């Protein structure tokens, strides 16, 4: 079975995000970029499937500018066999991404499409669902556990009410949640090997994909600063304060 994994280049989760002064977006100058953590989890799961003998080939795909190749190299160091770089310099909306991923899926015909449940930059949580809908194949989102058995996958989903176990036919789109696994540390020799693995570069035109009419960002602003709290000495005081604010 072939496993396709999509990865996205995002601002590193440790970076304190700063909004540009003119509100046109987030400041990316000199900011550390990494692979989306949920995509790392998806990648790890794919590599584990390969190590367990369930998967024969792991292919990583990313959509982004020239620099996104760094994240593909990380994916290759994780253990992907080859990578596909869909070069797009503009901002990509979830629907455009889904269209691109659909085209890549149709070209590669994998048995399983793994990706992160959402990217930590836009937090859209749409691409996986849209891709599966466009492809007309099952989806299993927020996966906390994944078992492959022949042509079926059993996925334990982390939903608001608790855990939901579902069975889907393969091929399917599975999106990884936080507790699916703990990604490994990249091994130094694997990092060195990654640069010799093949990366295929394609454009949207090569894939015959058109960008979906996008959203326009009108303004980006930092979250409002939290006002300082107050200390109360007794429960009565607390109740009085809450009543005063009309909260109880």
């Amino acid at each position: 079975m072939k496993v396709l994994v999509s990865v996205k280049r995002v601002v590193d989760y440790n970076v304190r995000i700063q909004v540009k002064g003119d509100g046109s977006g987030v400041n990316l100058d000199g900011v550390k970029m990494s692979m989306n953590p949920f995509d790392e989890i998806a990648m790890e799961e794919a590599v584990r499937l390969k190590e367990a003998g369930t998967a024969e080939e792991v292919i990583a795909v990313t959509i982004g500018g020239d620099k996104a190749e760094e994240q593909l190299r990380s994916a290759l160091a994780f253990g992907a066999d080859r990578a596909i770089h869909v070069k797009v310099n503009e901002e990509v909306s979830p629907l455009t991404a889904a269209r691109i991923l659909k085209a890549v899926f149709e070209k590669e015909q994998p048995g399983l499409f793994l990706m992160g449940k959402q990217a930590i930059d836009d937090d859209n949580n749409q691409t996986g669902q849209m891709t599966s809908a466009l492809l007309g194949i099952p989806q299993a989102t927020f996966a906390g556990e994944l078992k492959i058995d022949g042509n079926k996958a059993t996925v334990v989903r982390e939903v608001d009410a608790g855990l939901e176990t579902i069975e889907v036919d393969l091929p399917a789109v599975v999106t990884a949640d936080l507790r699916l696994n703990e990604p490994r540390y990249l091994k130094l020799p694997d990092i060195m090997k990654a640069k010799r693995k093949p990366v295929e570069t394609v454009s949207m035109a090569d894939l015959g994909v058109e960008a979906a009419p996008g959203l326009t960002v009108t303004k980006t602003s930092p979250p409002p600063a939290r006002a300082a709290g107050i200390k109360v000495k007794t429960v009565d005081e607390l109740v009085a304060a809450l009543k005063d604010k009309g909260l109880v």
Partner: protein
Amino acid sequence: MARDIQGWGLAWLNRFAGSAVVQRMKLNKPAEKALYQASKTGFKTAGAANRAFKSVQKLVKPARLDKARPRDLFDLTPTDEQAMIQDTMQRFAEERLRPAAYDADNACEAPAALLHEANELGLAMMAVPEEMGGAATEYSAVSGVLQAAALAQGDMGLALACLAPVSVANALSRWGTAEQQSAYLASFLDEKPPAAALAVTEPGALFDPFVLSTTATASDDGFVLNGVKSLVPLAASAELFLVAAKTDKGPALFILESSTQGVSIEAEPAMGLRAASLGRLLLKDVKVPAAAILGGKDSFDYAEMIALSRLGLCALAVGLAQAVLDYVIPYANERKAFGEPISHRQAVAFMIANIGIEQESMRLLTLRAASRADQGKSFIREAALARRLCADKGMAIGNDGVQVLGGHGFVKEHPVERWYRDLRAVGVIEGSMLL
């Protein structure tokens, strides 16, 4: 020039105010006032008559100079691989080394499982050439600096414990003869590679690595080693040592297996770097074969070895200094005194700014020396400069780290007291670490 004009103007006003005509015509009050005003505000005069500026040449776009041609001499941008390696190491340091550091410091020992995990990252593999089955395609001192600094950001003692065997592998890879490499270097590819360490420092006063008191006397079938080595990392567990000793042809390194007769180990718990299990290596009439001299007769350069080992220590100090900086900034912003964060006090803010400046200068000097080493240029002087700076400023940064935290810095609740002790080692230790 401005003063000249003003002086000239004032002199003229002075003469004018004091002149007989002005006195006689009762003009001296306003004239004196003019003098007062002029000396207060500076002499004012109309702008100089200027030439007519004409555009001689019509430009379509502004003429700008190109950036100076980049030269490879001092480009410190890490390669993609170096950046990824640094990233992985930093993550490992933060998630694995840092939480284990407190206990390892107390126990004077790095947990075996942790060292195993570090080895799993392939640290030693990176010292073994590809043709031997390792992963190294090139030797790079800069990569070594980045790796060591990244690990030390987690903890310096544990970083040294992880890197001590790698240092021996590096030395074998760089200078070892074919026989030495096949006998010893290959063992670093094992799942459980040997614990190993470099032993250069000696306990005497004013230790100079070029004036060794450990001796290697030529005998019929090899050498006889005698002397004491101190502050040797992993001393008790190491199976393999590289020992610096004086021969009649100058200082050299000798490959020494720990089970050789005449070798004994003493624990030497120290102020800092405790997780590296420092110990003393006592050599009494230790017989080693003639083939034990690293690099055979010629291919070994002792001065270069010392320089690379100093750079290794510098790299550790750079990493740990970064850890101090990253720790004190949020602390100073969150800790409140007199109703506001202590970072609002200049005494604190300036201290932190200085840590930043000093740490960056340590990094740059260290990387510059390493980058010269990679280019095949002489780097002994640069490594010595880096060492001096890292020893002085490393200690200062350790001290300032404690100071910013005040009473909190003194107690073991925070790691800065350990870092203070660890950073103290840079000025004391020689050759326990090699890039």
